[in-house]
């Protein structure tokens, strides 16, 4: 079927019919010493003919950088619009409101695709617009493998939206129904999701307001022995609000969210049913970072159970400068108490604001930036400062009272006379008593925090040559903190074990860093530095050299066994070039450093080719609020080509 569509559309172009079209090509190839090579090529073709529009995306990837190998039409869609009606068939990508119910994206960089293959019907008349869509969606998630997805959630869905716009006011109603086959580590869950939403907005001269609410009900279809039905129900809701205020050239953005779909203690979230589903791509309320080091310390947003607020102020300063400042505070909706090791009890946080108690996994983030142009717009610069603190795990969290049991044992002696003989009998008597109530605290959590300072500068000469320098410096801490007068929970006597049983007032605070140095010794702080140098000739070419360095390991120690000439050149290692360096034994100073060089050429204004050689550090990569761990790229070559026509 797909081949036929491609053939018909290609034939139509070549036959010179009244089609108009545009296309783009993205081709990339990579090979590194880890023996993972990839070749990823995509052709996007858009066709326009009167009221008909069509889109085809062909992919040849064997294998792609991330995802599954493919040599086929990956996406297609045909649209027909006439008068007030629109019909779309194929791969549909729509969004409603701010995405609390429905927001579809195809993000190649994180391999997240929640598009629906099906049918879309739309009708508009004046301020009224109605839409319906239905079809099937396959959403893939990663498991342990960083390149190939493992879990698949399959949705058979339909949804409806109605929106009415009147002057500067909009009001919308949404409804989504999905039958999901949810793949788990072991087996599958069959879940029915029903979502209903409402949103509204008003735009004024000096203010905008947007509010959205969604109500969600999920039912898991399950059966016990002998097929006895055992359906379970879970309810949830989400609220998002956005108020923007403007005064002159200053703008203040305020956002609030409260997502209550599913909850669990610590960083635990049930992988069963009733969670937020893959269509719900909701606002994060964290800054969309655009520097490498800040991008690596992004908070792992929990769309099932998180509330928070974000403030962002932007405006001009004297001397042509611009200021951007941002603050966000998020937390779960509950605080948690670990009554035992496995028994946790929650307490809802009162009011609207996020909590600061460690058991509610709070997160704070702030960022300030000053940027501007100078020297007749030839100079561009940007200074930033980002700071965050995140409680990412809670291992135990008890704060209460208990009594200690006191066991007293004694022997009771008795005598018995029997036909003139005296017998002595003894009995062990156990007496149980309790001490008075005393305070017990046993807490342990994991906390990460960082301070990052990005700096960027570029100067362009009138002959078109420009020089750019980027520098980022980061101090990062990651530590387990334990505090209290008790450590573990003792199941045998159902109590928390005091560190000093004779003195409940003996409290301790212990910090254990999770970073280790080259000798596997724990170090308090990880220092990260990234330097980028770029030199370019406008519209022709650019050369970029990147040096990334980290002082400590976050996890197991990794050794780079390969030493390449670019690294030797950047490190100023003369021995490498004089033949005095054993290339099979890279020097210590080359470890935990990643160097790469990239040359890009503009073949024409719409064609670009680039070649990269070197290494790129792996780690967290975030885009559109979706984060994934990127595998490192070690001592290899990347080649990419892109064109639009």
């Amino acid at each position, binding site marked *: 079927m797909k081949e036929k569509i491609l053939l018909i559309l290609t034939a139509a172009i070549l036959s010179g019919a009244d089609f108009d079209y545009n296309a783009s090509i993205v081709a990339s190839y990579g090979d590194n010493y880890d023996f993972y090579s990839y070749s990823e090529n995509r052709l996007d073709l858009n066709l326009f003919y009167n009221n008909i529009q069509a889109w085809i995306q062909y992919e040849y990837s064997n294998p792609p950088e991330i995802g599954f190998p493919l040599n086929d039409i990956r996406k297609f869609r045909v649209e027909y619009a006439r008068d007030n009606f629109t019909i779309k068939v194929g791969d549909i990508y729509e969004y409603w409101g701010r995405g609390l119910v429905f927001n579809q994206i195809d993000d190649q960089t994180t391999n997240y695709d929640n598009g629906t293959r099906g049918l879309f019907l739309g009708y508009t008349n004046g301020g009224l617009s109605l839409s319906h869509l239905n079809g099937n969606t396959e959403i893939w998630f990663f498991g342990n493998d960083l390149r190939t997805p493992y879990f698949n959630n399959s949705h058979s869905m339909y949804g409806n939206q109605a929106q009415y716009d009147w002057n500067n006011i909009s009001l919308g109603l949404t409804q989504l129904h999905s039958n999901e086959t949810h793949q788990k580590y072991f087996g599958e869950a069959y879940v029915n999701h029903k979502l209903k939403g409402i949103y509204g907005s008003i735009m004024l001269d000096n203010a905008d307001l947007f509010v959205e609410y969604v109500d969600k009900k999920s039912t898991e279809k399950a059966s016990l022995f002998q097929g006895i039905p055992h359906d379970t129900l879970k309810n949830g809701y989400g609220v998002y609000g956005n108020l923007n205020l403007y005064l002159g050239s200053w703008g203040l953005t305020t956002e609030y969210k409260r997502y209550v779909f599913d909850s669990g203690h610590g960083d635990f979230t049930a992988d069963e049913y009733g969670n937020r589903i893959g269509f719900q791509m909701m606002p994060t309320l964290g800054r969309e970072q655009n520097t490498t080091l800040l991008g690596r310390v992004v908070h792992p947003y929990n769309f099932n159970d998180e509330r928070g607020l974000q403030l962002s102020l932007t405006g001009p300063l004297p001397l042509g400068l611009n200021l951007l400042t941002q603050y966000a505070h998020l937390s779960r909706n509950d605080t948690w108490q670990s009554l035992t090791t496995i028994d946790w009890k929650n307490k809802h946080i009162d009011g609207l604001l996020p909590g600061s108690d460690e058991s509610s996994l709070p997160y704070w983030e702030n960022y300030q930036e000053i940027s501007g142009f100078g020297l007749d*717009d030839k100079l561009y610069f940007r200074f930033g400062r980002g700071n965050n603190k995140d409680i990412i795990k809670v291992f135990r969290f008890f704060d209460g009272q208990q009594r200690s049991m006191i066991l007293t044992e004694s022997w009771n002696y008795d005598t018995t006379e029997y036909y003139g003989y005296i017998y002595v009998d003894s009995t062990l008597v156990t007496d149980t008593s309790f001490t008075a109530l005393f305070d017990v605290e046993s807490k342990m959590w994991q906390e990460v925090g960082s301070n990052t300072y990005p700096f960027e500068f570029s100067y362009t000469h009138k002959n078109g040559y420009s020089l750019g320098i980027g520098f980022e410096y980061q101090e990062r801490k990651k530590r387990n903190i334990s505090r209290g007068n008790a450590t573990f929970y003792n199941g045998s006597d159902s109590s928390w074990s005091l560190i000093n049983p004779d003195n409940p007032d003996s409290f301790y605070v212990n910090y254990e860093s999770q970073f280790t140095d080259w000798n596997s010794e724990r170090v308090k702080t990880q220092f990260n530095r990234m330097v980028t140098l770029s030199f370019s000739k406008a519209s022709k070419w650019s050369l970029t050299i990147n040096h990334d360095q980290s002082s400590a390991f976050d996890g197991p120690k990794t050794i780079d066994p390969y030493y390449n000439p670019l690294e030797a050149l950047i490190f100023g290692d003369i021995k490498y070039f004089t033949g005095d360096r054993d290339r099979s034994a890279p020097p210590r100073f080359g470890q935990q450093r990643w160097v790469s060089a990239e040359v890009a050429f503009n073949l024409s204004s719409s064609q670009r080719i680039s070649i990269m050689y070197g290494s790129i550090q792996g780690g967290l990569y975030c885009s559109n609020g979706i984060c994934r761990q990127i595998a490192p790229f070690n001592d290899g070559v990347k080649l990419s080509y892109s064109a639009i026509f």
Partner: protein
Amino acid sequence: MKIYIITILLCFSVSLFAKENETGRVIPDLKIKLLNGKTTSIHELLKDGPLMIDFWATWCKPCKKVMKHLDTYHQAYKENGFKVLMINQDTPRSIGKVKSYIRGKNHQFIVALDPNQKIAKKLNGLVMPTLILVDQDGTIKWRHQGYMPGEEVEIEHQIKTLLGLNTESGSKDS
């Protein structure tokens, strides 16, 4: 590797073929939603004169650099009927900050919203920034991907050529 080289060569051939045949291509009349909440279409914006379309996002660093220059050109050539249309690709997750950002910079160009990249996909603007210069009759005259500092000279050259304000002949982008 062999397949990859063949693919690259094929891409080159196709795109060079397309470049030769680029003149005369008409931009489709797509509906767009503006930052002020109103709806219009690309052909509607072309009624007064040529249009420069650029795709951007609040997190895109090179986009922000070129925006300043595009705003300058929008204001400098508006009497010639020229306009700049900046199509924003922030997702619904971060779209709340777009208006504040534009107000903060005091930009005067037209800003449209494309939160799930419908317009960008139809005009091949997924790489940011992507510039498309359209003549008043809808003909696409020039396309450009990416931004290197200094390229604003070429951008202005293309605008002035289209408006008939250039006394020099030929493009600076050889």
